[in-house]
């Protein structure tokens, strides 16, 4: 017995190396080769996907608009608000501003004027407290005329300079790293004493939009499921030459430009559009009662359901096609009603396709942007439109990043829930 084991240990290759080591070396080589093959893709993904996401997440907690100015041409960096930041360091949160504090701001304003950073700093403070930007731009414009006593000089400019909220906002802005953008993304704001409160009613926006995005995305996912299930079933059970023809009708819109499909819906749905004209022409609707199907939620739901439909049909089709029809026939022959046979035999086999389709449609819908922007009007816009607005309109990139970060976290949670309930290995895309 021991002799045998010993003999096995001593197994060697033709050139005398131990077999185990040789095998390991050979495997390592092929693993390395496989890695080299995927390396370009890995680098590509790291550079174009992982790095931007990390950068975005960093942007959501970092904003040095109050503390650093970089010239766009020379890239020369100038620290800003140095005196005021020093005053903040020396005085704890909640200290009422004294003459020294106002003198510090007055000195800092001169720097702002010189490097033209008044707008930048004001904008940064404005993220924490509305109506602050104009106070800064005005003060910078008059910076050279400010004279001691500075407190009185600032009160002359604008009584709001004594507002504790403004001082709290400046203190928050003074540190480049902050969680305040995440607070803003859920309609919260830090009060002067450091506690967290809700923003004014007439400025609350994001919670409502997150809620609307979630509800509409679920509704759209459900609608695509209801529409796609029978289509996919038909496609899967028809003889191939008919089903291929029908498949074209699913794929053709899928291949058509998103913009073309969205604008086609605009032509169909607008109040002087095809659908309303048909309803009025056939006498179902009076001319003055045309239904508003566009520039509202209805428009968003209709257009997005159509645009995302193929993402539900295709996974469903791919799981339905290989289902053996004899299972259902067997169930029927054993006395099951057609409903029972469907419910107990056919439907469970399609669940992986439903899961895949639902996840795909839902995740796409949550981040959808162009269609709601074009047909959504005011109440059919989604959170992605606000992210786009902060990216390209208000240029509050930190808030855009925080909103996108929330969306990302939300989707990961849903993905995790899905894994918990259905299991990710049950996902079948085709």
């Amino acid at each position, binding site marked *: 017995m021991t002799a045998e084991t010993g003999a096995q240990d001593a197994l060697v290759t033709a050139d005398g190396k131990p077999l185990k080591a040789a095998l390991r070396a050979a495997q390592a080589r092929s693993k390395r080769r496989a890695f080299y093959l995927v390396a370009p893709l890995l680098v590509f993904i790291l550079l174009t996907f992982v790095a931007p996401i990390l950068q975005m997440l960093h942007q959501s907690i970092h904003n040095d608009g109050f503390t650093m100015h970089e*010239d*766009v*041409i020379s890239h020369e960096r100038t620290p800003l608000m140095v005196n005021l930041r020093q005053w903040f360091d020396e005085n704890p949160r909640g200290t009422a501003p004294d003459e020294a504090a106002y003198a510090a701001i007055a000195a800092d304003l001169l720097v702002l004027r010189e*490097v*033209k*950073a*008044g*707008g*930048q700093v004001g*904008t940064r403070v*404005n993220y924490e407290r*509305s*109506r602050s*930007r*104009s106070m800064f*731009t*005005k003060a910078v414009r008059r910076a050279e005329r400010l004279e001691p006593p500075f407190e009185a000089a600032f009160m002359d400019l604008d009584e709001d300079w004594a507002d504790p909220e403004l001082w709290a906002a400046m203190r928050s802005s003074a540190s480049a790293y902050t969680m305040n953008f995440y607070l803003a993304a859920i309609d919260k704001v830090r009060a002067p004493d450091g506690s967290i409160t809700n923003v004014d009613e*007439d*400025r*609350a*926006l994001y919670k*409502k*939009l997150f809620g609307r995005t979630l509800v509409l995305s679920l509704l759209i996912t459900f609608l695509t499921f209801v529409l796609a299930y029978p289509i996919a079933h038909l496609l899967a059970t028809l003889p191939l030459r008919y089903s291929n023809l029908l498949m074209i009708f699913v794929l053709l819109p899928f291949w058509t430009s998103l913009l073309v499909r969205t604008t086609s819906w605009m032509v169909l749905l*607008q*109040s*002087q559009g095809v659908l309303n004209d048909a309803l009025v022409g056939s006498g179902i609707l009076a001319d*003055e009662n045309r239904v508003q199907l566009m*520039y509202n939620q209805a428009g968003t739901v209709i257009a997005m359901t159509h645009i995302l439909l193929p993402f539900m049909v295709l996974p469903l089709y791919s799981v339905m096609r290989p289902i053996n029809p004899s299972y259902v026939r067997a169930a029927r022959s054993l006395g099951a009603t057609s409903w029972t046979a469907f419910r107990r035999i056919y439907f469970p086999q399609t669940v992986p396709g439903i899961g895949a389709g639902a996840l795909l449609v839902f995740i796409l819908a949550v981040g959808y942007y162009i269609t709601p922007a074009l047909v959504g*009007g*005011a*109440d059919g*816009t989604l959170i992605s439109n*606000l992210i786009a*607005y902060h*990216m*390209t*309109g*208000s*240029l509050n990139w930190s808030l855009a990043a925080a909103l996108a970060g929330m969306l990302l976290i939300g989707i990961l949670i849903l993905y995790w829930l899905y894994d918990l309930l259905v299991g990710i290995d049950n996902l079948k895309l085709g």
Partner: protein
Amino acid sequence: MKTKTILLATALTSVGFAAAAQEVTVMSWGGSYTKSQVEAYHKPFTAETGIAVNSVDSDNPATPIKAQVEAGNVTVDVADVEFSDAVRLCDEGLLEEIDVSMLPAAPDGTPATEDFIDGALQDCAVANIVWSTVFAYNTENNATAPATIADFFNTADFPGKRGLRKTAKANLEMALMADGVAADEVYDMLETDEGIDKAFAKLDSIKDDIVWWEAGAQPPQLLADGEVVMSTAYNGRIFNAAVAESQPLVVVWDGQILDFDLFVIPKGAPNLEEAKKFVAYSTDTQRLADQASWISYGPARKSSGALVGKFMDGETEMAEHMPTAEANLTNALVNNFEFWVDNDAELNERFNAWLAQ
């Protein structure tokens, strides 16, 4: 020797290419407005200087400019922006300063500084036109013709959808004027919280009937389609749709808001010298007058006024269609750029929250 010749030849060709590749990228507002600039500025500029002009469009060029400069990736050399945006971007150090001495004098020798109308020359910007936000209606879809800005906000007597630009600017002013505030009190009122609340309350009264537009080409389209019965619009767009395309659209001048459009050069513009040449060329007396024969916007130079004649159709006199025509100024508001420089960000924040409610 041979290598040297080849090197020299290569060098010469590349110089040749560099010369041929002289170009300037100009961003404007699209539609009939960009067309007027292409005809009046770009084509003659290229013919005269050999510098090609790339025309690109945006719903509002001020936004991409700011984003490009802040991201350090500037692709636009010249942009056409509104007054308050020109001043704001300049305050923030995002624009090149423009030396007024490079601007040509009027044909009679009046220097540019005196030839441009008040406010048209800024540290970083040169105005080319005076335009206005007006409201317009489609005669086929209105039983009674609206005559005042109050009618625009009166959906009881003038039922139907309204088109409004999806931004706070101009909407708040018009809402207050419709509420009976005199034009010269509008901005005093907007400086107060009550005034802003009042403006939003007025907008709120027609909120359910509003279709929002973003690009200047949309309002004439929405009106022609019958999608809205009245819409705010840039006056020149309505004029072109009505005159050049024979749409039954009419401009109501009551409550119009006058503004400049100005050329600016973003910091870091890739073709700075060409950009300066373009700005100087395009804002000379003849070019500004030519522009007015393609769309009904007033030239920013006094000396251009006399040269403005007929629309390109050769029939329509332009004078009465200009926002600055005497008859059109009875209840007009001049956009207070300082107010919007200071309050644009804040009011749009509130505007967005209001939209989503």
